[in-house]
Each structure stands twice: as C-alpha cells, then as structure tokens.
C-alpha cells in the first residue's frame, strides 16, 4: 500500500452515494481499489474494509478546484473521473509526489513573478465500475460542492433583488445621524465601499437608472429597453 494514503475516518452520515470497485490514482500513481463515498461534508475514497478508520483520501469541498469526466486520455484507456484538488502549500515538502510540483512551482515562480496567488493542484483520477456510476458521481460531487460556498464571499454578492443587507455595521448609528437613511455619506470609515449608499432601499430613488426607478422586486414593466 502506498504510503501516501492517510488514515481517514470513513463518513457514516450525510452520505449521498457510495460507489464500490473504484480504482484511484494520485497523479500517475495507482493507489488501489476501494470505495468512493460522496458525502455532503467531504469526498472520501478508501480501501474496502469494515472498519471506520481506513487508509484512503479525504477531500474537502472548499479545496476541490474542479472535477470532470475524461473519456480520452493517452495514459488511461477507460473513461474516468478527474478531481483536481488544491494543495496547501505546507504539504509540498512532505509529499513524495511533490518533485514534479516543486519543479513546476519553482519555474512558475521564476517565469511569472506576479503569480503570488498561484495555487498548487493535484489530480486524482477515479475509475468507476460503470459509466452510469461515473455520471452520477460527477453530478453528486457538483451538488455537494455547491453546498460549500466560501464564507467570506457574502460581502461581495451581486446586487440581487432582496439583498438589502446593511454592510456598515460598526459605528454607523453614531456617526451618521440617520443611519441608513442618509443619502450622502460624509464619513466613509464604516462604509468604505459605499455599500450603504447603494443597497439601502431608501436610496434607490436617488439613482437615475431604469433598473431602480421602481421598487425592487417588481419586474412588471419592461422599461425603456
């Protein structure tokens, strides 16, 4: 058994689907045949066993960069599922397979010094028992991944209807006399991006565009367009 596999806890709840006879590959190294378990908290592949603690791989959805179905690949004759996972930078030195990554990483760093945010990714390949399993697994992973949005992204939502969220929390009521009702923000410390001016519903009338000339939530009139 390759020493890359960690001992992981096989999930026992919130399981969407389990697939048996799944062969797993990490980059080009064959890991064995086992069970793939798509649970709502993580994606787990582990060797077939009756114990809860088994050797295998556990992937958290926030680090799951992308996943897809590959049908034609020169090295893998069967169609299979490829899961691209973001690797934490600390793992690079420990990982035996990292020699490719480190070479690439160094070259990346020297070729493009601006890529401070470059992520390191690894490929896992899962060869399922049947083609149907493959399609269902792809769909399930996509659904479970949608359940894990990044927490900080709530601040940069689009201007969706109904999102009258007050972003300026801290001293807003003290610094601005009218709180959200104030059309002009003289003090931008609590609202550096000007969210209050845009999202507060009482300010909608001040904007002249067609999209906000009527109350939010009503799409009755088509407008001038």
């Amino acid at each position, binding site marked *: 058994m390759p020493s890359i596999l960690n001992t992981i806890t096989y999930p026992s709840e919130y399981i969407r689907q389990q697939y048996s006879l799944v062969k797993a590959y990490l980059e080009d190294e064959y890991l064995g045949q086992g069970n793939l378990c798509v649970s709502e908290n993580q994606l787990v592949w582990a060797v077939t066993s009756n114990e809860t603690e088994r050797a295998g791989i556990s992937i958290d959805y*926030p680090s*799951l*960069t*992308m*996943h*897809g*179905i*590959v*049908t*034609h*690949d020169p090295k893998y004759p069967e*169609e299979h599922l*490829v899961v691209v996972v*973001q690797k934490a930078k600390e793992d690079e030195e420990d990982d035996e397979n990292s020699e*490719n990554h480190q*070479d*690439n990483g160094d*070259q*990346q760093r020297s*070729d*493009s010094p601006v*890529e401070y*945010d*470059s*992520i*390191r*990714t690894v*490929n896992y390949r899962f060869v399922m028992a049947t083609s149907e399993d493959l399609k269902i697994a*792809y769909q399930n*992973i*996509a659904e479970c*991944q*949608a359940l894990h*949005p*990044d927490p900080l*992204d709530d601040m940069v939502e*689009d*201007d*969706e*209807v*109904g999102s009258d969220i007050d972003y300026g929390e801290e001293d807003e009521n003290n610094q601005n006399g009218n709180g959200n009702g104030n059309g002009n923000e003289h003090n931008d410390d609590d609202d550096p991006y000007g969210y209050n001016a845009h999202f507060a519903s009482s300010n909608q009338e001040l904007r002249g565009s067609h*999209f906000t000339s009527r109350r939010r939530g009503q*799409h*009755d*009139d*088509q*407008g001038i*367009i």
Partner: protein
Amino acid sequence: MSNLNRKYKKESCRTLLGFLRCLAGQRTQIDIYGGIMLVGVLVDIDVNHNIQLSQVTMSRPLQRPISFTRLCIRYSNVRYIRVPDEIDVIETIRQDLRKMNPKPSEIFGGGQKKMHVRKGREYEKNLPPLRPDNYHY
C-alpha cells in the same frame, strides 16, 4: 423547484451573473488561478457562480493538457472568463432582459394577470387625486 429556477433566472438577468448565463453554448476560455487555462463550451453557471463546461481542454503550465467531456469548476478559482469577440455585450443583455420581462402581449399562452391591472378602470377613477385641490395656492 422550477419556480425557484425561474425566479433565479429572472433576478439574475440584472446582474453580471445574468450576462454570463447568456454565454451558455459559447466556446469560452476560462483562466484559473495558478496559470491553468480551460477552453470549453459553457453549459451552465449556477447561482454561486460555479461553472460547468463541456468539451474542455485544460492546460496547465509545464504539464500535458487534459481533455474533459464535462467539467465543473468551483467559483472561487476563476480568475477570468473571456467573452468571445463576436458577442456584443450590450445587445446580449438587452435581449436577455427582453426575454425575461416580456410584454403582456408577448407572453405565450396569455400569462398571469398582474396584480395592479386586476383592479381596472373603476379603481383608477376613484383614486385620490395626485395633488390636493389647493396645491397651487
């Protein structure tokens, strides 16, 4: 579920998401953080901006490219979505808005009667005047 889907589509038509959804069916290039580039046909973008593509070629720096029949990308990794040159952005948005907000006469099958129309002319006549009679004094 279909009601939620329709509502999401209609609301998103006024946002960037709505425009991106108009690109469905187009061959686009998506740049991912880490120098990864994907070229493929956009299938769907969901409300969280996760992107689904088909017939994709993924090229990573210094590694052999991989071809996917279907690929799903997590939104947080997307750096750029390149809009094909032949797409006129403003016209696409206009058409999308038109499709999402059809005039009552354009709705196939008649559509639902709107709340404010139901009251009719009687209601309009009996509304209080916009300005009181002594406004100009």
